[in-house]
């Protein structure tokens, strides 16, 4: 175990009524080898940066002056909960998770303000989706758990207005360690839209956030989830989304990931009831000397479930990206339909991608496909655009964007597409003129 872990644990005071969970988590962290690239699961990502970074998890004393315009950039009407440098900001949120006013059937409550019934629920459900010891950072997160959010949708309740959780960092987050948990529970036939946003202001700040979102879906429930990572690049983020799906539950998720000093995201989805559906889509954009590591693990434990996974990445400069997607089809998971595709575009000679789609199949009546490609800019397409008068530089921007635009077109909320599209386009060119036909 890294020495730093002991220090981090000393810096936080876990919620007393969750003491048992926290101790269990600490126990797992202490018993497991600390992740290093020697382990297959961490082959391309070293945690030295966070071990040695001297990150301090004690609370920030003075709140950063941040305007609500800076943090509420999506033109989407949401229940927005804003955290700045790891701390909840009532002044920037439109909801108070201490005593929220919410439509019937929707619960959003800060762990710290949970009543006895909610505490009992959290004690029971929290961390139940993290089923393997190898997720060391998720166990660390529960060991250090001092704050979190519970989001519950009652059975037969459809919540149209999305719930948004915004994490924003400023210069105050320099060398700060931050942690957060989200626990989502959807009752039978319930529906929820959830947007998790990660962003920063323009100041240079290091900082590390370790975050875990858990989603527990009862039969026939449906969730549309977005996780949008646009932190500035000196920030480190280790995050995970762990999901369990009961019978006929549907989980759709879109991921936008910009690279950073250290970024590692794990998606783990358990199909636990028959005919459940999981659709994961996403794009990652990694440049300069950024690092981005995405792991997905889908466990098909029961028959008739469906998984469709499509990720595309563009890597430029000296960026390094990792995609490791695993679909594990257990012995009894007959009639599984599973597809996984990962395509990557490399824009420079020093850009690197390590992609490994894996299918592990123990059932004999399933339909599965997977594929990964790594390519460079299509020279025929470039010639074609240039032959119509478009400059080589603008053509390159159009083609790079086009490579991921196909995935963006699947986004269901036009407001979210309208927000991330220009942000992505701007990643491809310094010169506004090269992007004018895409913006």
């Amino acid at each position: 175990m890294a020495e730093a872990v002991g220090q981090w644990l000393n810096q936080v005071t876990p919620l007393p009524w969750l003491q048992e969970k926290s101790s269990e988590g600490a126990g797992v962290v202490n018993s497991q080898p600390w992740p290093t690239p020697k382990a297959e699961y961490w082959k391309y990502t070293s945690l030295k940066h966070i071990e040695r970074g001297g990150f301090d998890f004690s609370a920030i004393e003075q709140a950063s002056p941040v305007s609500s315009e800076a943090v509420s950039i999506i033109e989407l009407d949401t229940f927005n909960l804003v955290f700045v440098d790891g701390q909840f900001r009532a002044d920037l949120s439109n909801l108070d998770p201490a005593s929220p006013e919410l439509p019937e059937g929707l619960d959003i409550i800060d762990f710290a303000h949970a009543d006895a019934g909610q505490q009992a629920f959290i004690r029971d459900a929290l961390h139940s989706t993290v089923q393997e010891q190898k997720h060391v950072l998720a166990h660390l997160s529960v060991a250090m758990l001092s704050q979190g959010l519970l989001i519950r949708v009652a059975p037969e309740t459809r919540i149209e207005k999305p719930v948004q959780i915004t994490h924003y960092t400023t210069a105050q987050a320099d060398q700060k360690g931050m942690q957060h948990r989200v626990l989502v529970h959807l009752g039978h036939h319930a529906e929820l839209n959830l947007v998790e946003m990660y962003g920063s202001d323009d100041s240079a700040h290091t900082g590390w956030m370790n975050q875990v979102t858990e989603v527990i879906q009862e039969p026939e429930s449906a969730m549309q989830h977005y996780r949008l990572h646009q932190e500035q690049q000196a920030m480190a983020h280790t995050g995970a989304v762990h999901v369990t799906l009961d019978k006929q539950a549907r989980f759709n998720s879109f991921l936008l990931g910009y690279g950073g000093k250290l970024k590692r995201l794990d998606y783990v989805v358990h199909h636990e009831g028959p005919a459940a559906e999981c659709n994961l889509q996403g794009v990652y954009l990694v440049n300069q000397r950024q690092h981005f590591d995405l792991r997905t693990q889908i466990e098909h434990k029961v028959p008739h479930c469906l998984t469709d996974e499509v990720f595309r990445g563009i890597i430029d400069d000296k960026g390094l990206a990792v995609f490791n997607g695993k679909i594990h089809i257990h012995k009894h998971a007959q009639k599984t339909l599973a597809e996984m595709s990962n395509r990557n575009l490399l824009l420079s000679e020093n850009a690197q991608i390590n992609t490994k789609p894996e299918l592990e199949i123990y059932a004999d009546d399933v339909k599965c496909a997977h594929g990964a490609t790594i390519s460079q800019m299509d020279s025929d397409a470039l010639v074609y655009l240039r032959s119509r008068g478009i400059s080589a530089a603008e053509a390159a921007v159009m083609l790079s964007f086009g490579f991921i635009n196909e995935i963006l077109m699947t986004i269901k909320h036009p407001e979210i597409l309208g927000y991330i599209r220009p942000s992505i386009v701007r990643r491809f060119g310094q010169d506004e003129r090269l992007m004018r036909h895409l913006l």
Partner: protein
Amino acid sequence: MLSIHNLEASVEDKPILKGLSLSVKPGEVHAIMGPNGSGKSTLGHVLAGREGYEVTGGSVDFFGTDLTELEPEERAREGLFLAFQYPVEIPGVSNLEFLKAAVDAKREHAGLEPLDSVSFIRTARESCQKVDLEQSFLKRGVNEGFSGGEKKRNELLQMMMLEPKIAILDETDSGLDIDALQVVAKGVNAMRNEERGFVVVTHYQRLLNYIVPDYVHVLAGGRIVKSGGKELALQLESEGYGWLEADK
């Protein structure tokens, strides 16, 4: 307007064009016919400035400029248009964005302001109608999933929007059934005027029933071996290319 003199060009060090000369004046339609491997497609690619096609001799003068010195995009902005034999599919880049970028680049080169979106979209829709493409094709990725005929009509759509001074149609008839061929020919004929020149490259005489040329040239072994009027195409159709090769 376009004067090609003794043009020599190679692909991967293999000489393909071996002293080709051709002069096109405004308003003229020239057909270039020839057997497979004679260099027909190479001519189009060399004129458009495609990478990998190296000019090793001769000259190409386009309105007083040495065309071979220009980048492909500069040639297009100067008014040269190549309709591709195999238009490229570009998923993710919408046809409309692509057209707007092309039209704006050309207008900017001519010192004009970019078109505002509303008038641009109106023009694009009108052009769609002229080439018998549904407007939904504007929103789709460039040529993405288009049939052979739709791709050729999309080439024509681009040509209409870009209003070139000279258009080179590279085997535009290949892979088209008779109905599609007629649509394309109608579009080309609608664009014929006293100022615009056309070079129609084709293997078969069939297309020339619909796009009637002023001159027909036979390309063989990288050179033009015979030139004549439109009746030459008919002779080639009935007698094949063999008699010309025996003739040389």
